[in-house]
Structures are given as structure tokens and as C-alpha cells.
């Protein structure tokens, strides 16, 4: 190749599938780290979420199995999860609001991550508080839904509408998910406080762990929060819509 042919212009080379695959192989066969861009904390959260996915999958598959094994008819979700608003029964309205609420909280969480990395502490902290508020509102609406169903006679061991497994699965699965949301809210509040105070700038040490935190914790928190959101979509689809 002669010199005239060499262009000095900037050329972007699109990675091919092959080069991407080779890149993954190179990362995995290298020393020190297999996921080159992931910190320890982020890798841990991802792997935890894989494990937690198996937990939720087992819950949902078990729910589908008992729905098939039971000999009694399954209650109609659209009738049971309906609210009387202005004299009209609107099916699934509360669930729609809850779903909208949780997805909105995922949006504010993503914005909080962005501002945390930009070191805009106050904005990040406020957005995390907003996320926590949406999360708490979700749990509150769930509590309302639970009390309404309990008032109508739905119990874990039986209900007046049909198969006993309806109540069992409902309380167990939404309860387990609500527990995840509640834990998320608590950690959101703790991390928001640390971000607001600037703990990660001054290197203040954690009360229990005696270790310094980093702004990355906001993103790790975000991973968990989006996961809880995603799981809700599956619960929504398999429990309420089916």
C-alpha cells in the first residue's frame, strides 16, 4: 500500500459480530476481571438479580401450576380487581395506576443516577426521595388493595369467588414483591441521605460497615429498583391480566 492511499480522515470502524464475540472471549480469558466495565458492587447486584429472578420465576410457575391443579374455577381478575368510581365499575383501574406509578419511579430513579454521577448532589437526592415516594405510594396502594380484598372475604386459605389458591397466590406473590419494594424504599432513603450530606465526597464511613461509599451505589440501587419494576410487569401480566 502506498502513502497516497492512506487517508488521514477519521474513520469509524463498526464492530462486527465476530469482533464483538472475540472481544468477549478476550475479556473472559484475561486476568483480573471478567466483566471489564463492572465494579465489584455492580457485578454483585447483577448476579443477585439473576438469583432473585429464579425466586420470582419459581413463585410464578408455582402459581400457574396450582391454578391448573385446583378443581374449582379461578375467579375473574377483571371483576375482583375493579373499583367503583362514580357508580361505575372500572376493571383493573387501581392496578393500572400502581403500574404507572412504579414505572414513573423507574424514570425518576434513572434521572437520579445521572445527577449522582454529575455530582449534582441535591438534585440526585431529591429525585431519589421522589422515587422513594412513588415506591411508598405503591406499597400504600397495595395495602389498600389488600384491605379491600380482605374486607370482601378473600383470605389466604379461601375466598367467596372461587379457587382457594387465588387468595394464597395473590397474597404470597404481591406480598413478596411488596417486600422487595419496601426494602428498596428504605435503602433509597438511606442512600438519599448520604448523597444529600455529601458522604461520598468527604469519604464518611458507613455506620455498620465502616467503609467509604461511592456514588456508584446510586446506580447499583437503580439496578435493583428497575428489577423490582420489571418483576411487577410480569406479575401484572400473569396474575392480573390472565
Amino acid at each position, binding site marked *: 500500500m502506498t502513502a497516497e492511499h492512506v487517508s488521514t480522515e477519521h474513520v469509524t470502524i463498526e464492530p462486527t459480530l465476530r469482533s464483538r464475540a472475540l472481544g468477549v472471549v478476550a475479556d473472559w480469558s484475561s486476568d483480573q476481571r471478567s*466483566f471489564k466495565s463492572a465494579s465489584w458492587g455492580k457485578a454483585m447486584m447483577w448476579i443477585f438479580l439473576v438469583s432473585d429472578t429464579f425466586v420470582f420465576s419459581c413463585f410464578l410457575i408455582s402459581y400457574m401450576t396450582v391454578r391448573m391443579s385446583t*378443581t374449582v374455577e379461578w375467579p375473574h381478575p377483571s371483576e375482583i380487581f375493579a373499583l367503583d368510581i362514580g357508580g361505575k365499575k372500572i376493571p383493573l383501574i387501581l392496578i393500572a395506576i400502581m403500574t404507572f406509578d412504579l414505572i414513573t419511579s423507574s424514570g425518576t430513579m434513572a434521572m437520579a443516577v445521572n445527577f449522582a454521577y454529575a455530582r449534582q448532589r441535591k438534585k440526585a437526592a431529591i429525585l431519589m426521595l421522589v422515587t422513594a415516594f412513588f415506591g411508598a405510594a405503591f406499597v400504600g396502594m397495595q395495602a389498600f388493595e389488600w384491605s379491600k380484598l380482605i374486607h370482601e372475604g378473600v383470605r389466604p*386459605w379461601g375466598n367467596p369467588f372461587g379457587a*382457594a389458591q387465588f387468595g394464597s397466590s395473590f397474597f404470597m406473590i404481591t406480598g413478596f414483591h411488596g417486600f422487595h419494594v419496601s426494602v428498596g424504599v428504605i435503602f433509597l432513603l438511606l442512600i438519599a441521605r448520604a448523597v444529600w450530606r455529601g458522604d461520598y465526597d468527604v469519604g464518611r464511613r458507613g455506620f455498620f460497615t465502616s467503609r467509604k461509599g461511592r456514588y456508584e451505589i446510586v446506580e447499583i440501587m437503580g439496578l435493583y429498583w428497575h428489577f423490582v419494576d420489571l418483576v411487577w410487569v410480569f406479575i401484572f401480566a400473569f396474575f392480573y391480566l390472565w
Partner: protein
Amino acid sequence: MTDASVPQNVAPPPAEVEDVELYHAHSWITKYVFCQDAKVIAIQYAGTAITVGILALVLSWVIRLQLAFPGAIPFIDAQVYYQSVTMHGMIMVVYMLTAIFLGGFGNYLIPLMVGARDMVFPYVNMLSYWVYLIATLVLVASYFFPGGPTGAGWTLYPPQSILTGTPGHEWGIILMLASLILFIIGFTMGGLNYVVTVLQARTRGMTLMRMPLTVWGIFAAAVMALLAFPGLFVACVMLLLDRTLGTSFFVPSIVELGEHKEYVGGSPILFQHLFWFFGHPEVYIVALPAFGIVSDLISVHARKNIFGYRMMVWAIIAIGVLSMVVWGHHMYVSGMDPWFGFFFAVTTLAIAVPTALKVYNWVLTLWHADIHFTTPMLFALGFLVTFVNGGITGLYLGNVIVDVPLSATLFVVAHFHMVMGIAPVLVIFGAIYHWYPKITGRMMDERLGKIHFWITFLGAYAIFFPMHYLGVLGMPRRFYEMGETAFVPASATTLNIFITITALAVGFAQSIFFYNLFKSLKYGAPAGGNPWRAASLEWQTPETPPGHGNWGKQLPVVYRWPYGYSVPGAPEDYLPQNAPPVRGERSP
């Protein structure tokens, strides 16, 4: 793929992650009790596991005494017998073997073998142990509650496990389920640590394919545990709800003692699926660390590199993947679609391929090797024999038509004790004899160790080999007493008495091991840093026992694999992983 123009022995790339800031314990409590150092946590884990393991050993004597001398010992009634069977099984599988391999050896060896200062999340690691301890205490506490521990069998199959008539249906089953849930939570905290440490915290030059097989085995087991324990977790939560709130996840409409229970429409088979989705990978969660450790023991004490290292790694991965899709072979007698039986039989038998590959590679490592018959080597060889024995009976039981008649007999007991009872326990002993010098700085007594080995190994054969015969005769397992049965000859009773007496003797003989363990702590010969002249990284620490942070000021740099034994031209007969390459040497 290799580029000839790149020199093979370039130094490893610079550090990608800055050295971690260590947490320094300031008081005795934070140094030895609530300690965040993986090495201390490892010893806590192992100590707790061995303690409950001794309880399980005593329970096995109760079982054996009843089988050999039915009714002769006054306090062993049917209730005590079934409780002993249940607790023996659950403790050995979950609280002893899983905990000691992952919590004990995993914690001690992973950071040292991959060249890390500690686990990646030492605080979470500490919590893991304390949750495990609470789980163990909750389990043992069931002995002090009305009705005692559950006697449902370690599989805890509903509906029987939660109905009256089963021992411990009052509190035992509740505490058992609560304890398992706690164990899984604790294990998840530890398991995340093991996996992330292996993936993300290796030292410079430590590629995945330069890790000792011990680390590979523990790593694969930890990944599998994170994926399999959710099945047990969900099963426990749902069974707990069935028992306490009266939900009907697992219990169909049922009449008990003439009374129609409230339960309606549940699926008992669902519990079996969830349980065995955990239960089968669990076998390999125990076996894979044992495979890894035994590979290292054989290589070090035969002064030869492990044969087919890469194939050994891929076999571990293949076994791990396959073992997630074979759980149905525990349920052949539950009844299933013939096509499922076909599928599970095929996948089960397919596991024999990578497993046999590993066995061949161990044997080929020994071929023409300079075998030192040290105590760890004897235990490793003992493992090979018992494991092959148990593996071959596994091939019988993997076939549906052979399994169905044998499933409820002592043949199955003999099979799984050989393959996942005796074999891993022999590896645990071998590993303790092998790494004890690193952990304490002193050697264990070789003479006592050899006596311990021969009694344990021959004794284990004397106990479990005749059981195959009893099983083929049709002697059922789990039965409290046989009574008068036409198909069991009188000679079977004699054999049962022989097994029981051997079991008692072998059990008591373990005191030789414990005596050796504690005596050597003070009177053992000083070991030095590397008494076995081993190449892997944990033997190259600046201090023995390794200090806090493992590596002193500088993290080690790795240039080669951990099996550099009998290397031609090397100054000694081994090349440590962190020995810099000599001029012109191809980096292995």
C-alpha cells in the same frame, strides 16, 4: 489465534483495580468473633459445620442401632427413628457438606488461590456466617420444642410432612422450614461473594484458565447454588404457608384420621419439582468442590501436572449445566409422562460422560507419576474408588425401569452414600490434612492420619457395600422395622448387625482425627510456608498462617498455571505460579 510476533512471556498487564483498603479489626471481638476476614469466617463456618456434622453422625448410629437390633434400645421408638433419619439427612446435605465446602473451603481458599486480599464484600461475608449460625441453631432448637424435630424424611414431602401422625408436625416442621429459609438467605450472601471474587478480584496474571481446579469447582458450585436454592426457598415459603395459614399450595383435598381437612386442590407433585430442582443440583454443589479439591491433591502429591486441565474445567461446567435439567430422575416413582422419564433418563446418563472424563484424567494424572502416599493423597485415592463405585450404581438408577424397583430399597441408600456421602467426606478429610499446615503453620501427625484413613476408608466400604446387596434383595429403606417378611432371609439380619457394628466403630474412630486435629495445633511439627512444595498461590504467602490481607505489601503477580510440577530444567521439581518466567520460557 496466537500471534507469533508477540513474545510469550510478557509481564501481565498493569493492575486494573486499585488495591483495596483493608478493614482493620481493633478489638478481640471484631478480630475473632464478628470478624470480616474470610479466613476467620472460613474457620467459623467449618467449625459449626463439623459440630452439627457430629450430631448427624450420632443420629446415624441411632438409625443403624434400630435397623440391626429392632426394639432392643428402649428410647428408639418409631418417632425418634424417623426424626433421626430426617435430621441426619438434612444436616449432612445442607448444614454440613454445603456449608463446609462453600463456606469453609470457599472462604479460606478462594481469596488465597486467586491472589485477592479478602472476599470482595467482607461485611456481607460476615453476615453470611452469622445467618448460617442462626439457621443451624433454629434447626437444633426443634429438639427442645413440643413434639421434637420433624420426622418427614429429609425431602419433607407434603402432605405427609405437615399432617398429624408425622413426628414433629407441631413445631419441628415449622422450625425446619424457617431454618432452611434462613440458610438460603445466609448462603446467598456468601455465594455472591464467592462468585464475584472469582470473576472480578483476581490478581494480575491470574486468568480464569490459570485458576486451580479447586477454585473452579467451588465457583461452579456457588453459581449453581445461587440458581438452585431459589427452588427450595419457594418450596419452603409455600409449605410454611400451608402449615401455618392453611393455604393449599401442595395439599389436595384430604381426609385425615376420619376428618376431612380444609385443604383443597393443591399439587403435591409441585413440591417435589421445586424440591428436586434444588435437590439434584445440590448433589453437584457438594460434588464439584470435591472434584476440584481432589484434582489439586492428586496433582500436588503425585508431583505431576493435572492431566487435561482444560477438559477438566469444561467438564466441571458441563456437569454444572447438565445437573440443572435432571431433577426429574428423583421422581420416577412419583409418576410422570413417559417422555419426561425418557428426557430425564437421557440427561442423567449424559452426565456420566463429563464425569467419566474427569475420572480418566485423575487416573491419567497418576499414570507414571511420582506418587507420595501422604495422608491427603490416600484420601484422594479413596475418593476415586468410592466415587467410581457410587457413580456406577448411579448409572443403574438413572434408568427408569431399573430405578422403579430399586427406588425404595437400601440400594439407593448405598448409592447416594457412596457418591455424595463417603466420597465428599473423604475429600474433606484429605483437604484438612492438606491445608492444615497453611491454616495453622503446623503439620498434622502422618501416622495417626494414615490410621484414620484406613479405618475410615475400609470401614465405609464395610458399611455401604453390603447395602447394595440388601437393596437388591428388596430390603426397603426408611422402614422403622421389618417384622416378618418372606423375601428377607435371616442372613440379611446378620448383615445388618455387621453394618451397624462397623458403623459404630468407624464413627468412634473419628476421634483419632479430632485428637490429631487438636494435638497438632500445639505439638505438630512446624510446617514452614510450603511443606508439600505446591505450586498454587495459597502456598506462596509471605506469612504462614497468612496474615490479615493475605499478601503483605504487594499483591502477587501470576505468570503460569498452578500445576507446574516436575518441570524439566526448573531449579526445584515445582514452579510456583508467581515465579517470574526465565528467558525464552513459553508462559504456560
